[in-house]
């Protein structure tokens, strides 16, 4: 009989041993939740929001986004901009150091930016660097070089295309990968307008005026990296000439940054921990000693962890009952309406923290904050649909009719139930200082029906809308992705609004994410769920999407007038005048042509106690900086 218990005892001791091998540390000053682990801590390869937020803990670019959305100095103490906004000279602070004590120089920035531009790095955001003079040509040249080394039989083709001279192509094929890489570095210095004049000065020459270049420079992918670490992790494939990096350099103990914190622990799908970097130039002003992000995939568990006090901040509350929690927040706000009405948005948390605690059925720890993104639906603007049928939506009057019959207030109150700020424009209102997006079209079903009548779609005796040829209005198909209930709900609501207000037949079709995207890119839809988050603090981060040649213009919208305005704006140096031109372009977009139907500004739902966690900004860019956070216990 005892024999039965032997395996049990063995099991128990095994577990005890394995578990006791774990490494525990005291709770960090600020603990936040990641719904999924960081994707990468390599600043040049980042694209996810939470990666970029973490980058602000361990790296610091030349400039930074301040809590009010404007740009301020960071690793650079100051800069000069040429009159035509195409040459920027950055002056680094003196005495800047990496987390191991090495000095940070202009050369480190140049190295990092070159990494981002090199196609070998496969940086998602390499395009942000292509405004630098020569960067695009260099990117293409390097891509061609790699293509040539991979397939020498393409030599003649590439020479004919002008990528290389015949001599250069032969030289490349004759040399080894290492030599090709040295050739690439020389070529970079020749072609690209990036110059580390001295250890404290970085000069950037742009291909044309970019008034928002400073905003780009504050983006995480523009952070410097520690050259000796990267060089040790880099090898050049002797055959293909491609750079290969040992990606384990982003792990604790190896990763060296210049930000307010250093990485002390990163355990896959579990947690990562940052502790104050003593070499940071402004270390005394950093309130938190340590910051930890724990991975909690389940939205409900995250809330339980918050309720139990194990975490201080959930940056993205996704639990299904969040709308009910928001209703409790509104109940709390109602009680103190008089006080809160007088509070500036930036002071909201401070004021909330001084109010009496919430009663039962109320809460103040859930916060819906406007994000730098717009929820919209795409409208197909092509003459014909993919199936060859004529597309009634090619007529802007029909598109306006659709827009005029969307009751956005009802959508945010009863469908999404998140009370987002409804939006008639594409650029989120108030997100870019000095830019005033247009109003867009109101909810006006009478005007909508009039537009549809004017477009020739009149109702016959049976109530069916027909064009002058007698063809009935085709069934309006609304494409959405089934991943999130939000898009299904919105699509069904729009279908009903258009059926009811415009008396046209409408149906929805849900597709899994991949298939939805494929249909969208093919243009195989009439109306489709959309949405866009801006990358940098300029209206073009949204407006470029509707340029006739943009890769994300899935709508087939091609307006010479709109393209012209964008081109004029790009050539305009005066920021005020430039914004007025862009406002006019956006007005055409959302009041006349409607290739997109804007619904509302996206919100992010945060969970934190306003009297405990300090230092979060509510500015729509939501550029949260770990170096500004603190917790009052």
């Amino acid at each position, binding site marked *: 009989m005892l*024999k039965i218990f032997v395996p049990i005892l063995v*099991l128990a001791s095994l577990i*005890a041993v*394995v578990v006791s091998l774990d490494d525990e540390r005291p709770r960090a000053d600020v603990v936040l939740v990641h719904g999924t682990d960081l994707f990468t801590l390599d600043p040049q390869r980042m694209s*996810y929001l939470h990666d970029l937020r973490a980058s602000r803990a361990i790296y610091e670019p030349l400039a930074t986004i301040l809590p009010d959305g404007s740009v301020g100095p960071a690793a650079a103490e100051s800069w000069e901009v040429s009159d035509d906004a195409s040459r920027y000279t950055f002056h680094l602070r003196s005495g800047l150091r990496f987390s191991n004590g090495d000095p940070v120089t202009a050369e480190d920035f140049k190295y990092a930016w070159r990494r981002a531009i090199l*196609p070998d790095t496969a940086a*998602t955001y390499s395009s942000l660097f292509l405004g630098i003079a020569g960067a695009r040509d260099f990117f293409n040249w390097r891509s061609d070089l790699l293509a040539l080394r991979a397939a020498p039989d393409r030599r003649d083709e590439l020479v004919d295309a002008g990528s290389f001279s015949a001599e250069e192509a032969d030289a490349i094929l004759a040399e080894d990968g290492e030599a090709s890489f040295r050739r690439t570095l020389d070529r970079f210095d020749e072609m690209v307008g990036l110059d580390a004049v001295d250890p404290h000065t970085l000069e950037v020459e742009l291909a044309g005026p970019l008034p928002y270049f400073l905003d780009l420079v504050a983006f995480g992918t523009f952070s410097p990296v520690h050259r000796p670490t990267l060089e040790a992790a880099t090898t050049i494939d002797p055959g293909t000439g491609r750079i290969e990096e040992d990606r384990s350099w982003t792990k604790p103990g190896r990763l060296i940054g210049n930000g307010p914190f250093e990485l002390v622990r990163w355990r896959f799908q579990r947690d990562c921990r940052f502790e104050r970097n003593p070499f940071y130039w402004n270390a005394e002003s950093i309130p938190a000693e340590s910051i930890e992000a724990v991975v909690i995939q389940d939205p409900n568990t995250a809330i339980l962890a918050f309720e*139990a006090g194990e975490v201080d901040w959930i940056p993205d509350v996704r639990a299904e009952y969040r709308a009910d929690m928001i209703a409790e927040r509104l109940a709390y706000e109602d009680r103190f309406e008089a006080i809160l009405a007088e509070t500036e948005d930036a002071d909201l948390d401070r004021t909330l923290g001084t109010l009496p605690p919430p009663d039962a059925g109320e809460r103040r720890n859930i916060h819906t904050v406007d994000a730098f993104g717009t929820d919209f639906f795409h409208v197909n603007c092509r003459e014909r649909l993919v199936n060859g049928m004529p597309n009634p939506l090619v007529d802007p009057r029909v598109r306006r009719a659709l827009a005029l019959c969307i009751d956005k207030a009802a959508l945010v109150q009863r469908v999404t139930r998140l009370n987002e700020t409804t939006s008639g424009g594409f650029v989120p209102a108030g997100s870019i200082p000095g830019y005033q997006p247009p109003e867009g079209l109101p909810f006006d079903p009478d005007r909508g029906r009039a537009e549809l009548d004017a477009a020739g779609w009149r109702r016959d005796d049976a109530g069916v809308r027909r064009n002058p040829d007698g063809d009935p209005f085709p069934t309006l198909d609304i494409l959405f992705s089934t991943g999130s209930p939000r898009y299904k709900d919105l699509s069904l609501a729009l279908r009903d609004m258009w059926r009811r207000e415009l008396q046209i037949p409408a149906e929805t079709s849900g597709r899994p994410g991949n298939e939805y995207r494929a249909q969208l890119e093919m243009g195989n839809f009439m109306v489709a769920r959309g949405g866009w988050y801006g990358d940098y603090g300029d209206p073009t981060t949204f407006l470029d999407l509707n340029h006739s040649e943009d890769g994300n213009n899935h709508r087939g919208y091609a307006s010479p007038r709109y393209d012209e305005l964008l081109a004029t704006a790009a050539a305009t140096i005066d920021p005020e005048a430039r914004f007025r031109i862009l406002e006019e372009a956006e007005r055409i977009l959302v009041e006349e042509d409607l290739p997109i139907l804007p619904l509302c500004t996206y919100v992010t739902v945060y969970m934190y106690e306003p009297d405990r966690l300090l230092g979060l900004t509510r500015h729509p860019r939501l550029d949260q900086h770990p170096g500004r956070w603190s917790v009052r216990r």
Partner: protein
Amino acid sequence: MTGLVVRRLVQMPFIILIVYTVTFALAWLVPGNPLESPDGRRPDQAVVDAMLAQYKLDDPVAFYFDYLGKATGVSYLLGDAPRPFDLGPSLSQSDWTVNEILAAGLPVSVSLGLAAILIALVLGLFAGVIGGLRPNTALDAGTQALAVIGISLPSFVIGVMLLILFAVKLGWFPIGGWGDLQHVVLPAFALSLPFAAYIARLTRFGMIDEMRKDYIRTARAKGLPERRVAMGHALRNAFLPVLSSLGPATAIAMTGSFVIEKVFAVPGIGRNFVDAVMAKDITLIMGVVLVYSILLVLFNLIVDVLYSWIDPRISL
């Protein structure tokens, strides 16, 4: 018995190779592109091509043999690879290699799975013996009802209930995560319930069956106390079917805890597998499946060995 162990160990590479091949074919056929980020932002085509070439994703045959060579250590022996048993970089988690991911998650999943089996054994044997000794009494009905609940309640429901009661209301255990024995208790308990229920039923039927047999009458006749009759004689035989179910059950508990891992924020490998399939992360899928199949084969072997050790009548 040595013969069996040797035979099984020789078979193992072939079983694993078949699993590898089938998994590879399925993973390759999954639609989608592992290098595409779910937020829909797509890098430049040149960048995509660079990535495809880097990971040899442009040629399935080359990928199959290259990966096989590196994973088995053959490439290392031939001097083509710097490390043996290299399962490659994860395609969707680009800062991590599959080896690192498995090394981080496997100890967690294994200890959670073993703890769950341990709890299941204790609960299941206890409930099964009680029910088996007093069949068709209120006590039996009670344990049976509990067993049915254990099997039929989905683990995410039980998980959330346990969390709300023991972590939020009573504060006895942390909400989630991993680190010390306290973190193990709730997820292991939630994970153990279906197994406990299964073991309880097996034990109950076994006990009822054994208690009617002749050798039990003999044992009673020679005046053994009832406790020793039940525990020393009947349970020993009733335990055998439980034991044979333990091999696969242990492997399943160690690998199939995706929901539990999610609800209790346990950093095991179960959810890596699900995430990997979603992202078509071929290297990670292959790595996890290889580890799963090795575990499954090994645990079946261990159980067979235990079997003959507990019951000397069985010779292998």
